[in-house]
């Protein structure tokens, strides 16, 4: 008897649970709410959110915007905003500086140019980094933040565009993505799909992919390896049922086995201990496999959040390389910019008296 097998019955004895037993009654009681309760909760929540939004006013909207758009692009935008607005004022009216007005203006102009260059370079690098990191995580190259089961929106958008372009019958492809009808026109007079229709199709495509992969992940938990196989065109079959196809780097038996091992999908001792902790919050006779599935689905969510946060570090790291390029670009562009658009400031009337003040790059 393996260690796992010896631990499982012991725990089941403690909880009065037979292996494999599914207690449907207890599972129903988890979500057993009065009819219409969810609707009432939704309506009241909406009313309170509306009231709070009104009370917090413009500041509340700013905070929400900042929270929603949190990331590397935001940090660059904030930096650029103050570099363009505050820094030139502080340089042009610096009381500790003894330079003449013309020189101060000349130097102050450097700030918006610097912000524009930094923002352009930073934005380009951030977009490229996001693309690269999304591909890495959503194709399983970074095991610890593996997002293959719940791919990010950006990654799925790229895949949707790729699949749409590759489809021989584009209308059929879109129909398959979004079988639900949408209000308004699906196609414009020139035969191209409307933006609204494409957005709805992407949502359908995204839901379909996520659902399929989540089902696969849940099916793999605790499943015997003999019941899992790869067939034909990278199709993954579990217990004779085809669950998914062409998941990046899950296309061979070796890759699938490595994935199962990496994510502890077999209930081992370590996982079992974690599950026991989780069990405390559930009904005593809940089935172990069900709890394991719940535990693992939380793990998927956590991996998604972890990737989003890990990506912020990657964004900073890649952008540090960009700093050198933007510095050089600024050195090249700034004098030319002033000479072209503000020639009177670039003209050196009296170099002996002329002074330059730096500060704040």
């Amino acid at each position, binding site marked *: 008897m393996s260690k796992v097998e010896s631990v499982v019955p012991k725990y089941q004895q403690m909880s009065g649970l037979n292996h494999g037993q599914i207690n449907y009654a207890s599972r129903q009681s988890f979500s057993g709410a009065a009819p219409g309760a969810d609707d009432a909760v939704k309506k009241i929540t909406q009313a309170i959110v509306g009231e*709070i939004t009104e009370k*917090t006013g413009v500041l509340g909207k700013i*905070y929400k915007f*900042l929270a929603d758009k949190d990331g590397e692009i935001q940090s660059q935008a904030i930096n650029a905003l103050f570099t363009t607005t505050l820094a030139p004022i*502080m340089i042009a009216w610096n009381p500790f500086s003894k330079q003449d007005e013309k020189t101060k203006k000349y130097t102050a102009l450097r700030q918006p140019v610097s912000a524009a260059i930094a923002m352009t370079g930073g934005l380009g690098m951030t977009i490229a980094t996001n693309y690269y990191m999304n591909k890495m995580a959503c194709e399983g*190259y970074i095991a610890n933040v593996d997002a293959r089961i719940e791919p990010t929106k950006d990654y799925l958008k790229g895949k949707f565009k790729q699949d749409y372009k590759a489809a021989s019958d584009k209308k059929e492809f879109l129909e398959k993505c979004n079988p639900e009808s949408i209000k308004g026109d699906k196609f414009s007079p020139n035969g191209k799909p409307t933006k609204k229709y494409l957005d709805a199709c992407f949502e359908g495509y995204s839901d379909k992919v996520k659902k399929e992969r989540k089902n696969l992940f849940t099916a793999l938990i605790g499943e015997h390896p003999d019941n899992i196989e790869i067939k034909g065109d990278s199709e993954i079959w579990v217990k004779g049922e085809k669950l998914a196809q062409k998941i990046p780097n899950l296309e061979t038996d070796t890759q699938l086995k490595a994935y199962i091992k990496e994510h502890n999908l077999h209930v081992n001792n370590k996982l079992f201990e974690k599950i026991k902790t989780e069990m405390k919050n559930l009904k005593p006779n809940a089935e172990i496999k069900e709890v394991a599935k719940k535990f693992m689905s939380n793990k998927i969510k956590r991996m998604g959040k972890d990737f989003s946060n890990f990506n912020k570090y990657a964004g900073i790291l890649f952008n540090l390389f960009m700093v050198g390029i933007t510095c050089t670009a600024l050195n090249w562009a700034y004098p030319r910019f002033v000479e072209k658009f503000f020639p009177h400031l670039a003209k050196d009337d009296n170099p002996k008296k002329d002074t330059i003040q730096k500060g704040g790059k």
Partner: protein
Amino acid sequence: MNISSILYKKPGELFNKLAKSKWMQKNLEQGVSDSERFAAAMLVTSIVSKDLVNCAFYTTQSYNNQKIPEEKRKFVAALDLMNGIIMVGGQLLIGKVIDAKVTPKLLSKFTGTIKDAKGVEKTVNNKALLHPDNIKEMAQKAAKNLDLKIDDKMTEKIVKNVTKLCKEPFAKGFGLFAAAIATTAIVKRTIAPLLSTPLAGWFKEKFMDKGKKPEINKDTIEIESKVLAPSYSKTKDNKQEHKLIKAA
């Protein structure tokens, strides 16, 4: 070795090592358990790390710019260094103070709670807009207005939903706003430009002019006037730079 291995497999292994490291795991844990503070910390980290690289880049560039006479070159490099030190040190310091003292106190006016030294949330005002007790009260009023009946379980669910939809984004956005104003607006774009010039003169005299007679202020001002512009460009055809070097 194929292209996929070079572009993804090997870098993926490196990134995985980084993601698995204790330091990163600790930070990722904070990203989930305390996303509000994590977001503000990441904003400061992002800005400060770039300033640090910028400072190193500009200081080295100025110090090694052979077109600037040696004596004058030192002042330019000192200015770049002082600017960097004030920006990096000041932002780190103020970022820490804002995160630990200012944000929680100001935020508690809206949330009605504040964390003590052990990280346990304490109620300071249960009538505050985003306090769970106030949300419960609002839920009762809303239920009455909408002619709906709610029990304790439903009320708890409403509190949870409202917290997720309002309190969490509010706290996160507030933290980001406070960090941005304090670090970027105040330290980087107000204090640093004001103080870096006088401090650069002091630094040069104190640490770079060892064994030389201290220069009078007039000279320092003149040095400033003649050499700062060239550090902006190393290009040969920069007329401004040539004029100033000639004047020097």
